[in-house]
């Protein structure tokens, strides 16, 4: 029963979700949103599990004085501090919670995102080394697209932006669409395996 009930729920929900796409009338029309709301409710309760796990692991780390325990203090202080400021003074504009979010959380996220530029540079450097014919083609295409998409490209040769656009719109787009067709079919096939209960590893057992 432990296995049969989740499989039955998966089958019913899977079929209903497929059917609702083709039937616009009620009760099918609102089912997609309803199921999504149910999922959100479950996810919110599950967040408590995640929080408990996070606190337990870091308290454990502090007790045992494991390497990097100082970071655990910062994490726990940040967690407790944010919860309390939010609970006591609300989360509106001008509140301490909002101050923490705008001045600490957002800049830290932006910093991580900004690192992407450097990672792209290092990854490109490796990818664009002309080791063989494929890599050389990649290098040539990348250089043409990069130069063609900046202002100086048109100054060097006025046809460069058109070449860059052609590479992006035709060979690149064709490749992207081929991958997307494969993904769509893979998704259908995998979904069918899950709905029919052929694929059940995600339930925690074969």
């Amino acid at each position, binding site marked *: 029963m432990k296995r049969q009930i989740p499989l039955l729920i998966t089958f019913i929900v899977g079929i209903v979700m*497929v059917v609702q*796409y*083709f*039937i*616009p*009338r*009620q009760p099918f*029309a609102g089912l997609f949103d309803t199921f*999504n709301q149910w*999922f959100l409710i*479950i*996810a919110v309760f*599950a*967040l*408590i*599990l*995640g*929080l408990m*796990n*996070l606190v337990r*692991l870091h308290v454990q780390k502090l007790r045992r004085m494991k*390497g*990097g325990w100082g970071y655990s203090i910062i994490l726990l202080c940040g967690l407790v501090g944010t919860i309390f400021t939010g609970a006591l003074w609300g989360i509106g504009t001008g509140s301490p919670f909002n101050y923490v979010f705008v001045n600490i959380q957002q800049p*830290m*996220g932006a910093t*991580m*995102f900004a690192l*992407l530029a450097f*990672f*792209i540079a*290092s*990854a*490109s450097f*490796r*990818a664009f080394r002309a080791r063989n014919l494929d890599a050389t083609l990649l290098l040539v295409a990348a250089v043409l697209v990069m130069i063609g998409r900046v202002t100086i490209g048109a100054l060097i040769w006025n046809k460069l932006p058109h070449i860059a656009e052609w590479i992006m719109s035709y060979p690149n787009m064709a490749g*992207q669409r081929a*991958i*997307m*067709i*494969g*993904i769509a*079919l*893979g*998704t*259908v*096939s*995998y*979904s*069918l*395996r*899950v709905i*029919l209960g*052929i*694929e059940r*590893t*995600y*339930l*925690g*057992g*074969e």
Partner: protein
Amino acid sequence: MILLFLIASFSISAYDTPNDAGSSITLKFSSSLPFISGEVMRKNSDGEFERMASICSSDSSWMDNFTVDGVEYFYKIVLTTEEGIVTSETVSAVSSPQWFHKGRTIMLVMVILVCGFILFFIREARGGKELYVRPIAGIEALDEAVGRATELGRPIMFITGIMDMDDLQTIAGITILRRVAKKAAEYEAQVLVPTSRSLVMTAAQETVKEAYYDAGRPDIFNPDNIFYLTDDQFGFAAGCDGIMVREKPGAIFFMGSFYAESLILAETGHSTGAIQIAGTAMPSQLPFFVTACDYTLIGEEFFAASAYLSRDPLQLGSLKGQDWGKLIFFALIVVGTVLMTFGITVIRNILMVR
């Protein structure tokens, strides 16, 4: 005479909005005469006309989303022109919900066709027919990566992306995690699974636990190795990067749905010298993984991994059916391209989903 001409140059029609859940009537109108302002008027069979909306000269349709199904509504449009007030003829319509979205007929046909192929080959496989599946280097390398991490005496890191359990890619990632965890248990290695969603953490804990039980090594299973970090995208990336730098895993797996954090994770992993295998169905992130990882499961390969690894005939049958679906799409693309080249749009019109 002028008024008759004005009315004649103003056409209006009302009909039940197609492919909807009811309670909606669409009004189409076209006017060749310039007007200053226009108003849509509505009444039901026993009421008076009342103003419903204003229209401007660029409008050609208006949707009344406040109707009661089965009740007949009458509409007219009143235009204020420089010559005076012009009123359209009165038209009527009844709204009703539809049982089938006709704009999605081709989608239904395709779903039935592809699912039909998949089910047919699953049946064939059940009957004992041998099915060939081409070797996929990235999947073959899973065991090798686990073995290498074990030889180095380092843990294995498995990241299931940043989406929740409602994303099929996360489920596919969890499926591959089971295989990796089982192999790791056989080699007595530890698997670190940081997650960005609590539900994924719970599912991953269950999956890894089962894998260690399957391998006969429940004694070395440590639930604390599967833990929740944060829901925040870049917070999660920072956390994973920190673990990579501190723990120096021997093998890193990225299997799931990734966004802008993909390259941040993969490049950091690369800098630690770990063997990296990625799998995702996010086309925009694939180039990053291809660049920074040793192996990448591209789109459909990622979804095929569990079938490939299990060698279960039923699952392999579904892959074969998927290939036949691909063949149909390939044929449609070739025929459609040729026809479109000659200006024949029939295939495009048939395949359009509205």
